């Protein structure tokens, strides 16, 4: 074991040497000084852990030495040697941090005890320092681990392609990742720890969060929902989002929303629809040519018969031929119109309207033709449908097509025992949807026909149809984000069900 250093300060030569001797014999490495000043020099030089100093000395006395030593190294143990009657100073000394004092004449035993206490204190302090160091180390390791984990989560959130927006329990945004920056078009520093979600989210999303906070645990996770985020000059962006509350035990500590950018998917979807339509047109050019040739044949036939009538002065032939010419001119114009309607992209133009009035208009338009053929047109309009916003021109066109198809299906029906009827029904459905049913009890369709009704230039109406009508209907309905369903039974009739979403009237 290394010898313990001790600094011994006493102005009395005899005490100094006898104590030094005694300490050395007890295994200490003793440094002696005969004055406070030289003692402090030695302390600075040798930095002994224990200082044994006489209290009353000329010049710097023991108390001054104690103060300076403690000042220089608070860990150093200072034992004071006191004379009889130094009691007050001794108490002062203890207050300044002396570890002990021994009385003059210094007894061997007293000194030993004082030294042992000082050493124990030193040891304890060292142990404490070690423990503290260990603790600091462990703390550091734990911190590193926490930091690593939080870095990992940070990176996870930062590198997510999805937008992640988290709020605290008051709804103030605390996490706003780059994905969210891209989607909302706002830099993080403008919102994080500043804005509430109500300021950032469009109302459709903000309402979901508000409701979630209000309902708390009963709400559960919010189902994925599609919304369009309007960003002014930065354009609109379709997203899918979901949200959930965050809990610590039973307490709400915040919320988090996940946003997926759907613009690429939507773009691809649109391209697909576009290319499918182009392909459909490509595939059916032959059918188109066939159809046009039929019209030309009709025109040729018409003029041939007109000429016959002129040559023979046969007014009947003249009339018959002229009807054919007129009819085929009509076919060309409806073909051109249908082709245009089908090939042109058209965005729905939402306007305030009364859907029941639009449908009534269609019924009135076709009622004449229906009645001529002894077909009843039955209306069943839902009175709950008020003024709303949708594309009335599109609704008109779709319904006109379906109702006239229904009338034709009755005309073509060979079953004369039936009382033919076309029923037109409107109905309000959940989720801002209006449902239109057009039903007839006419000839109905075979499975084969049903499978082909959305094929371009497929027609069962002989020369009467362009074979594009239902295709136009389907396209218009899809452009309006609606759907179309068909039920049909051969000989019994058909029902076409169109569902269209609407917006509230302005």
């Amino acid at each position, binding site marked *: 074991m290394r010898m313990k250093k001790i600094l011994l300060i006493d102005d009395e030569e005899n005490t100094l040497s006898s104590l030094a001797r005694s300490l050395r014999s007890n295994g200490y490495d003793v440094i002696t000084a005969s004055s406070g000043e030289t003692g402090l020099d030695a302390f600075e030089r040798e930095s002994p852990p224990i200082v044994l100093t006489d209290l009353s000395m000329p010049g710097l006395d023991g108390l001054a030495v104690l103060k300076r030593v403690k000042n220089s190294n608070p860990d150093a143990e200072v034992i004071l040697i006191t004379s009889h009657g130094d009691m007050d100073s001794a108490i002062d000394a203890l207050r300044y941090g002396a570890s002990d004092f021994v009385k003059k004449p210094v007894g061997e035993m007293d000194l030993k005890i004082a030294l042992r206490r000082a050493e124990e204190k030193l040891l304890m302090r060292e142990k404490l320092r070690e423990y503290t160091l260990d603790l600091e180390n462990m703390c550091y390791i734990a911190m590193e681990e926490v930091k690593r984990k939080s870095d990992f989560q940070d990176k996870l959130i930062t590198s997510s392609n999805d937008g992640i927006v988290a709020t605290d329990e008051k709804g103030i945004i605390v996490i706003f990742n780059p994905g969210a920056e891209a989607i909302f078009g706002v830099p993080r520093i403008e919102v994080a720890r500043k804005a509430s979600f109500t300021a950032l989210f469009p109302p459709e999303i903000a309402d979901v969060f508000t409701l979630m906070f209000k309902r708390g645990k009963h709400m559960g996770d919010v189902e994925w929902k599609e919304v369009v985020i309007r960003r002014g000059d930065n354009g609109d962006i379709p997203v899918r989002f979901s949200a959930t509350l965050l809990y610590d035990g039973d307490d709400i500590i915040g919320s988090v929303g996940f946003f997926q950018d759907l613009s690429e998917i939507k773009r691809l979807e649109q391209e697909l629809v576009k290319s499918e339509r182009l392909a459909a047109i490509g595939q059916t050019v032959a059918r188109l040519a066939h159809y046009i040739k039929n019209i030309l044949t009709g025109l040729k036939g018409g003029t041939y018969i007109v000429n016959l009538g002129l040559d023979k002065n046969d007014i009947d032939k003249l009339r018959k031929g002229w009807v054919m010419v007129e009819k085929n001119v009509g076919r060309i114009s409806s073909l051109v119109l249908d082709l245009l309607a089908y090939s042109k992209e058209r965005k729905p133009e939402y306007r305030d309207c009364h859907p029941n009035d639009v449908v009534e208009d269609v019924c009135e338009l076709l009622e004449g033709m229906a009645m001529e053929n002894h077909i009843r047109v039955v209306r069943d309009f839902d009175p709950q449908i008020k003024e709303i916003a949708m594309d009335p021109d599109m609704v008109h066109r779709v319904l006109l097509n379906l109702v006239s198809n229904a009338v034709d299906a009755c005309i073509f029906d060979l079953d004369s025992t039936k009382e033919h009827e076309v029923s037109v029904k409107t109905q309000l459905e959940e989720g801002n949807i209006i449902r239109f049913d057009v039903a007839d009890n006419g000839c109905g369709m075979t499975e*084969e026909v049903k499978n082909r009704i959305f094929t371009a230039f497929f027609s069962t109406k002989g020369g009467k149809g362009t074979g594009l009508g239902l295709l136009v209907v389907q396209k218009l309905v899809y452009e309006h984000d609606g759907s179309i369903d068909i039920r049909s039974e051969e000989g019994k009739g058909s029902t076409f069900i169109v569902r269209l979403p609407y917006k509230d009237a302005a």
Partner: protein
Amino acid sequence: MSKRVLTVDDDPDISIFVKTVLEENQYTPLVARNGEEGLAMARDEAPDLIILDVLMPKQSGIRMYRELRSNESLKKIPVIILSGIAKRTFLRSQEALTEFGDQPIPDPDVYLEKPVEPLELAETVKKLIGS
């Protein structure tokens, strides 16, 4: 007695046209609106000639043509196909290939493409069955 010609087309204008051409040339026209009706008339009336549009709904034109060509008694009746598509397009069309399967598609006596001139139609009929 004048010769009888069956015309099968789903487009009434074309039927009227063909019928008028036939009448003007002293034939007796018979008119059917689809393949099923046409086939029944072919069996019942045994016409001297059939003018057939092959592209009609329900594939009935092509089916009728296959029947006409595979039935022993109907085989003898000459057939003019009057179609809106070119002959090679017809022979390669999915509808024709589906109907005939592995069998070769037989050539009609005459293949006429719409729109047809009244004179050409009349002369073709005359060439096939005389006046």
